[in-house]
């Protein structure tokens, strides 16, 4: 139990550091077990230093920087034990265009490195353009959902109407 958690922690740490530096195009971050010597009792702390900035407690980071750091942790855990399915519901919401591109590069990379099928819910046109296929959900009849296959052009028209 204890050894398994410590072993998992070390693997996640390695992936986390690499993913952070990839998503931030630089900088440094680290996971820490705090508050107890026993990993089964400890808390998980995150130290992050975006490129060009001093290392700071997570709260001082910007909304987008925090989201990117949390995504690094989630994907680090994922890569440690890849699941056959990964669903991401609007995780790109707080990201600026440059960060959305890096996020999509990472999805590309992971989809080629694993057998995992990815489902990404998004309002972001950049993310839409990077998907292999798109489905639109509509409510032509109020309160009733319909699923329909769409291409990028149709998807962008989707966004423009209620």
């Amino acid at each position, binding site marked *: 139990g204890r050894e398994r958690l410590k072993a998992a922690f070390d693997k*996640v740490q390695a992936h986390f550091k690499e993913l952070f530096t990839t998503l931030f195009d630089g900088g440094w971050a680290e996971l820490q077990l705090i508050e107890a010597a026993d990993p089964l009792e400890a808390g998980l702390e995150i130290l992050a230093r975006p490129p060009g900035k001093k290392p700071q407690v997570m709260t001082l980071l910007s909304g987008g920087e925090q989201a990117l750091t949390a995504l690094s942790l989630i994907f680090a*855990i994922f890569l440690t034990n890849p699941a056959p399915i990964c669903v991401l519901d609007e995780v790109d919401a707080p990201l600026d265009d440059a960060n959305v591109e890096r996020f999509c590069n990472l999805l590309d990379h992971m989809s080629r490195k694993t057998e995992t*099928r990815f489902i990404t819910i998004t309002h972001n046109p950049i993310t839409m353009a990077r*998907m292999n*296929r798109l489905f639109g*959900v509509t409510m032509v009849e109020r309160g009733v*959902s319909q*699923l329909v296959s769409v291409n990028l052009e149709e998807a962008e028209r989707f966004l423009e109407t209620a």
Partner: protein
Amino acid sequence: MKFTKLQISGFKTFVDATEFLIEPGLTGIVGPNGCGKSNLVEAMRWVMGENSFKAMRASGMDDVIFSGSGERRALDIAEVALVLDNSDNSAPAGFQDSPIIEVTRQIERAEGSTYRINGREVRAKDVQLLFADASTGAKSPALVRQGQIGELISAKPQARRRILEEAA
């Protein structure tokens, strides 16, 4: 074991039978606010054995059954089926001779849920174990709910460690 298809009927806003093909690589889901995108992926978590109605944004599990809209009346049954491709035989023992595994969950108002694997009735626990053995399941860290990123950021260190335990 690969996820290939999700069939939804009567679950939240998916009133009529809907089939969602899950293909390799990256699939995007788009649409206006409130049209049902999160409901769609919640159906997947639900059929994998999610037993907390709070994780379904509900105040009781019956809330996932279509409760009616302007023109349609409420239903009393919701059903979701998840079809898995087991042609690589990676599913747990007991499924060696099943190249296709179909997991179904049906809920009837005030009656609770019934689970089936390839038509045979099983317990919720059997479904949860099947997915846990495949490194997935309703609690998989790879299923990121809307707003969950924010929760992870503001989570206490103890709560964050539990996410690590899911991976171990």
